[in-house]
């Protein structure tokens, strides 16, 4: 099992590194910050062009377990002194994200880059900066790993 997941991750990492070195291929606004091992990767994400998040930069933490890619990775925004999660109706203040592709709609045909792009477009299409309903309750009781949360996905699917 672990052989498989590292095989996939190595390929994805290679691909990302090739893309990042080539401005023509790079997904604008998404940058790999750190991938020292095949367990946890960090990306920076910003929405280029006009959006509610103009000039804001966010950090995304992606954690893999040996069941990747058959199970989704755990993905959340980093919350630290330096970076804050976006204020968004699907993003809790602890960095957890409610997005169906990270849960029920995850498919092994998706990739880490596909997740980053989905999250970037979730921000780009946001109409109003507001916290999710029940943010405080959720943050108080939330498990450390967002994958342990059973989110109920709301209407405007992402």
């Amino acid at each position, binding site marked *: *099992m672990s052989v498989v*997941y590292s095989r*996939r991750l190595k390929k994805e990492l290679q691909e990302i590194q090739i893309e990042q070195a080539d401005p023509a291929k790079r997904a604008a606004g998404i940058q790999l910050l750190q991938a020292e091992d095949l367990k946890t990767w960090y990306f920076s994400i910003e929405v280029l062009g006009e959006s509610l998040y103009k000039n804001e930069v966010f950090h995304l933490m992606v954690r893999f377990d040996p069941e990747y890619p058959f199970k989704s990775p755990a993905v959340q925004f980093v919350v630290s002194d330096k970076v804050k999660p976006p204020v968004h109706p699907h993003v809790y203040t602890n960095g957890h994200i409610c997005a169906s592709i990270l849960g029920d709609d995850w498919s*092994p045909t998706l990739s880490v880059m596909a997740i980053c792009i989905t999250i970037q477009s979730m921000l780009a299409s946001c109409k109003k900066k507001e916290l999710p309903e029940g943010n405080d309750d959720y943050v108080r*009781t939330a498990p450390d790993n967002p994958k342990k949360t059973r989110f109920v996905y709301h209407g405007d699917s992402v």
Partner: protein
Amino acid sequence: MLDIASLTPAQLYELNQNLLDNSIPSTNPTMAELAPLSVLRAEYEGNSNSDSFIKQIDYLVAQGYEGIRRSRGDGDCFYRSLIYAYIERIFSTQDRHLAVATSISTLEALLPTLREASFEDPVIDECYEVPRDLIRGIVEPEPVSNTGQTLTTAQLLEVFQDESMSNYLVVFMRMITSAHIRQNPTEYEDFLIHPEVGGKMGVQEFCEAVVEVMGKEADHVQVTAISRAIKVNVKIAYLDGRNKDGRVEFVTFNHAIDEEEAPLTLIYRPGHYDILDKRSIEPLPLDI
């Protein structure tokens, strides 16, 4: 008394997961050895509601179908059964080299359509390598182990019993199915129904939520799409326990280039697919 409302999200998740895990007995192998249909029959015996199922099983045996190869009932059973039957059949062809070359070129020709369906290269590559190496291994000795031996049916089964290898094969089949539907939207769009809540779905929505996600069962649309894409005849015996006289409906999907080509046969019981076989035990390894 358990009050669900008082549970934290983590506890709810746990509860949910336990229910799920218990509903799918994970002790079953992802793919089992061939067994006589009498084993399946025995499971229905002694239950008065199962008379018509038993009659249907007897009907199949009378038609020459004596064996069943079970695929785990985890929602991936159709895709896993079909690719198993697809690869395993090559072992019994007259000209294995030709059959290997034909099936590799069929699968290879699908790769551009996977790219057009916007699957990413690393994903396509890693999924394609699994069936390609298995099929090639039927005639070419495996380079890695360096034993000079070609693949045996026992080894094929072993690979299918490896959870992650089996998953790759399923993902590959799901990608092909999805790409085919996406490429021929007009032929499928009237038939894309949400499997749980009913109601029509768009092509992209259907492919993303019903075809590409693991554990989602295949229905008529997916069976049609995959059999057209990989150009095979598929014949499914429907055991629904409805026909009191025990007759079994066969549904055929004939998309092989040669119409007369023997179909890959599956057996369907509500919610589940297995492989139906004319043999009742594993064939002995036969060197050619």
